[in-house]
């Protein structure tokens, strides 16, 4: 019954190794899907390449389904899986700031690493920017702390907020994702361009 390491079914020492292996999978798939190109990534916002939508939502719903089915079969104890807590104010503002960063830079941090791995200099510069941005946050932290800690709703799940079951929420998200996949392909037909 998973998760294996928090329950010490495998030793803690394996954790970092597993992180490494997971990372390899992550980086490999991202690069294979073309996430190492900022032009492909930005395409989702202009309709000419919706790979971001398909891969992102595809991964989210696959993992979502996976977790729910594993829990159903008794293969995983969901109460031991980390659910990131909601801090309302900072989550929203942080999301907005990151959204600007996304459309300006054409990367998000995880993806930028796979781009750096194949030699994209713009990704390296993006990473440099991340360092600076984090440093700025760290230095400004005393001023931001109270906002950062405000609106703590705890590790809330959307299904709890909506009063529906996890499975039903997953179904809704899947429907939304399927809709987006369909729209995505439609957009790509409308805005054709050559491959990057």
């Amino acid at each position: 019954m998973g998760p294996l390491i928090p329950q010490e079914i495998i030793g803690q020492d394996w954790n970092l190794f597993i992180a490494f292996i997971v990372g390899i999978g992550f980086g490999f798939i991202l690069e294979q899907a073309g996430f190492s190109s900022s032009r492909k990534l930005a395409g989702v916002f202009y309709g000419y390449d919706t790979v971001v939508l398909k891969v992102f939502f595809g991964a989210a719903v696959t993992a979502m389904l996976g977790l729910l089915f594993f829990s159903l079969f008794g293969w995983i104890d969901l109460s031991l899986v980390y659910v990131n807590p909601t801090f309302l104010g900072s989550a929203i503002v942080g999301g907005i700031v990151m959204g600007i960063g996304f459309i300006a830079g054409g990367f998000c941090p995880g993806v930028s690493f796979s781009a750096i791995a194949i030699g994209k200099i713009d990704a390296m510069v993006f990473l440099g920017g991340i360092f600076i941005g984090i440093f700025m946050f760290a230095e400004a932290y005393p001023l931001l702390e109270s906002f950062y800690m405000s609106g703590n709703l705890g590790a809330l799940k959307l299904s709890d907020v909506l009063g529906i079951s996890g499975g039903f929420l997953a179904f809704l998200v899947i429907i939304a994702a399927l809709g987006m996949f369909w729209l995505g392909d439609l957009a790509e037909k409308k805005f054709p361009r050559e491959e990057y």
Partner: protein
Amino acid sequence: MTIKSIVMMGLFMLGLVIAMVPENTTKPYKLTAEDMLVEVQGAAEMVTSDEVAHWLVSKDPSLQLIDVRTPDEFQKYHLEGAINIPISVILKDENRDYVDQGIKMNVLYSNGTIGSHQAWMILRQLGFENNYVMQGGLNYWFDTIMNPQKPSSTSPDEEFAKYDFRKAASGVFGGGGGAALTAPTQTKADKPKIKRKKKKKAPAGGC
């Protein structure tokens, strides 16, 4: 069929299934039937009322008595320091930390042995440790500790030792009077070991 259509259909169908299936909130059984058989035959979970009396008298801090009867019965009489977790609510989340822990030695009791043993069986199958059953329950407690029978003159010495202890203990608990208390040589040499529970690490994560 293209990959796209396979993926989309697959997601849709799995989504339907997961939406309709009720959420799994059952706590799975950790011990197999074979394991349980071995355990109940070994009867290591049983503790005697003498032992409980001894622990109470010596104010053993690791003891936690759990009364599994109804709240009414608990009100009428309960052992000193006992908490009331009726068997009907023993699986509820709010009681989880009492029955699933690795610090105290829980001794479950009821009027006889059946009620407390039933509770023990369920808890043990869920893999919880450190729960014990007071043999004979309160009935036996009253018969032996509170109103001990004076052994006949032909009984072995240890019976007398037990009797002296019980008389004294009953004094502590509100029964007949008694003299100085010494632990009877009868009690188990080893107190049941408290199994340190592997603390389930709270999940960590985040960026």
